[in-house]
Each structure stands twice: as C-alpha cells, then as structure tokens.
C-alpha cells in the first residue's frame, strides 16, 4: 500500500478545461458538485482507501521566528502568492496507477453547465518508513 496526497489548488495549478468561478454557476450545479465530492469520499471509505480529506480557507498568514524573547513575525496574506492550496485528500492505495485513476475521477467533478471541470489535481506520494527487507 502507498499513501498519496491529492492537492486541490485555488491558484497555482494549470487552468482547468471548464474554468468558471463557482459564484457564476447555478445553485443546482453547485449542489451537484458538492454531492459528487461527498459521494467520491464515501466510495473511497467503502473501498478502504480513504484516509483523510480537508478543505482550507483561502486566506492564511505567514509566520516566522524572530529571535529569542521576541514574538513571531506575521505577514500576509500575499495577493501575489502563486500557489494556494484549497484542500486535500489523503488516499492509501495499492499502486501509483490506482492513485492516478482516482485523481482522474475526482477531477471529473461536475462544474459550470454540469460538465466536468477537468481540474488539474496535484498527486504527491508520501515519504514512508523504509522496508524491512532491503536486499
């Protein structure tokens, strides 16, 4: 088994084929989209491949250490930040091929006009513990 992170971007991924902001969809199209996402997660839970899924607010803060005895420095949010994560799903699957297959299904979620968004999702393998047998 191998764990993969499926990343959905607010910004930073190549443009989707059906690239229309959600507030320009009809309410029914939004409902259909939400249902598709929920059904997808439920199906992965059913198949024993779902680990976690979370959505993130678009606005965050950058924070860094500023030396002993000083409070951390905060900055942002930066409008020019190129990469903005919207949310993730962690899956635990048998193979890279299966991970790609699932990411493809998620990317087919319906959007404006009820047509698939064809959104680019980023697929990242987890670094894991080394195997016991190495030779």
């Amino acid at each position: 088994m191998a764990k993969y992170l499926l990343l959905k971007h607010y910004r930073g991924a190549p443009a989707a084929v059906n690239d229309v902001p959600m507030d320009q969809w009809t309410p029914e199209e939004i409902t259909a989209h939400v249902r598709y996402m929920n059904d997808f997660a439920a199906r992965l839970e059913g198949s024993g491949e779902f680990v976690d899924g979370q959505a993130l607010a678009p606005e965050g803060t950058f924070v860094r250490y500023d030396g002993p005895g000083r409070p951390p420095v905060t900055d942002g949010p930066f409008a020019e930040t190129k990469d903005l994560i919207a949310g993730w799903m962690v899956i635990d699957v048998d193979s890279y091929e299966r991970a790609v297959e699932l990411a493809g299904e998620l990317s087919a979620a319906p959007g404006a006009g009820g047509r698939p968004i064809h959104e680019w999702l980023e697929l990242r393998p987890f670094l894991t513990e080394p195997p016991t047998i190495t030779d």
Partner: protein
Amino acid sequence: MDGDLLRRLTPQVLGVLVRRGADFAAAEDAVQDALVQAVHGWPADPPRDPLGWLVTVAWHRFLDAGRADAARRRREDLVVEEPAPGPASGVDDTLQLYFLCAHPSLTPSSAVALTLRAVGGLTTRQIARAYLVPEATMAQRISRAKRTVSGVRLDRPGDVATVLRVLYLVFNEGYSGDVDLAAEAVRLTRQLAAMVDHPEVAGLLALMLLHHARRAARTTPDGSLVPLAAQDRSRWDTALIAEGVRILQAALARDRLGEFQAQAAIAALHADARTAGETDWVQIVEWYDELARLTDSPVVRLNRAVAVGEADGAWAGLAALAAVGPSVPRHAAVTAYLHERAGDRATAARWYAEAADRAAHLAERDHLIRQAARLNTRPPG
C-alpha cells in the same frame, strides 16, 4: 446492558470517590475500571443496587492501585476514615464534579473533554471521534486535564458560569461522530438544572431545547444548510419547544436576566412564528438590545443589525451594521443579506462571494457561494 444507566451513574460514582478524598486522576481511572467490569459482569449477574455496586468496586480499585505506589500511607489513612458504604449525597458530589471539570485553570478544549469523560461518562475514543482528533491526542488532553485539577480542593461551590460556558461549547461546537454531542449537552444541562436552582442554568437549557427543536429542519438530507427563514417549520419538534418555553418563562419570572435567558427569549420568539413572515422582529430587536446591555459582544450587535433590517427595513439594518467592525465573523454574509433585501443584487452577490471566502465552516461556505450563484445566474423575482 444499559449503557445510559452506566453513563448516568458515572459522575455520581466519581463524585463519591473524590469526596472521600481520592485524588481525581486516580479516582477517574478506578471508575473506568469499574465500568469495564460492569459491562462484562452485569449482563449475567445484574446488581440490585447498581450505584452501590459501582461505588464499592471503584473504591476498591482505587485502594488496590494505591497500595502499589508511594501514596500508600495517605490512602491507608483514608481507609480508616472511609465513610459508611453507599453514596450519601449524590447530588452534591455530581455537582462538584461539574465545577471541577469546568475549572478555570483548564483551557476550554480540556474542560470540554474532561466534562464529557468524567461527567458524561463517554469513552476517550468516542470523544476523540466526536472532535475529529486521534484517540491518543484526546487521551493525552484528558490526562493532562486530570492532572491540572488533581490538586483542586472542592471545599466550596465553584462558579456556575464556567460550567455553563463549557456546556454551551459542547452544544454549539458539536461535530460529528457516533456520539450526538448536542443531545449529550442537553442531557448534561438538564441534569445540572435538576441540581442547581439558577435562572441562567434554566436559560441555557431553554436555549438548547429551542435550538435542538429545529435540528431536523436545519439541513437537507445531503447536508446543505437551510437558513431559518426557509426552514420547514412543521419539522420543528413542538414538544421540545413547549418544554423550552415553559422553562424560560419560569426563569424570566424570577427577574434575574442573564445572557442565556435573553438568547433563549429570541429563540422562543422565532419558535412562536408559524411562518417566517409572522416573526415578531420588533420584540426580537428589543431582546438584542437587552443582550447588548448584558454582554456588549460584537456578535450580538451583528445579529441585532439583521433583526433591525427585518423590523425597520434593510437600510436601517445597514445603518446598524455600520457600527459593527468588519472583522466579526459573518459580517460579510450579513452585509450581503441586507443588500439583497435592499434590492441591490449585484452588490449582494459580490458580498456573498466574499463571505464564502471568509466562511469558517464548510457547509456555511457552500451555502454562501450558492447564494452568490443564485443572484448571478437567476433573473430577479
């Protein structure tokens, strides 16, 4: 096996042990051991006096555990002083436990976890699942909380307001999982109201019951939010509403108004209206004025602006909103709503999209983006 009975008895047993002088953390462990033994043993051999049985077993567990460690001498003294078997004042013991678990030295999340475990009798796993954290994390949180309050002397009553805040958090921030946290909060508050004669305890119970009554109407089967005005009121639980109103009226009659009574009064006025159009917004604004006098919270002023918008028109609502800082949660959503009521659909749509970006909850975000979409894609009317 009656799990409800066990959970009802848990705080009483724990309360007895703590009153007898047991250290809270050790007492809690002993009670959990006794509960496990009860779950296994009772189906085949049910005790005549379940509470007495649990107290006896837990007390002996506590003493057994004590023999093994350095506190031996202290605990042997306790054996000598052991009171007559059987719980003497179960009510006082349970009440003290509420105060202990909501002690001001605990952070809110620790107080919530400890209350659910020690007073509510939930397992660590259930609490962890309810708050969507790993079981080990919740176990650690509870164990740190137990250590924090272990040295607290329960020689005088605590502040009931701290307990109410914890119960309010359990009710209002209840997540999912196999435990119904809202129902659990109602149960614990009901139990508290039976022990403490305090109008704000009654006020919180009434507030919970009146909101719990709307639960079936608050979401669609797929989890989408249904705003108050659009809810199918025939699905509200009239028995809970009647109980909430009765409790609230008795509390208000004592003329010691507090914020939970005022919030419950607003919920009761919504419950009174057979349709959203029949809502008595003028009276609701008056209650928000009372509430603002009691708490002066920006959230109250924000909600008051909505009520003013309904009572006196959208422009009056927007004027009231101008006095509320834009960083208050849901400010953008209220701005959008009032602009739509004022007939400015384009501005409202922009604010709804903005509000969706700032939403703190997934269902709320989906609801707000749907409002923006409705205004952007539907002709008026």
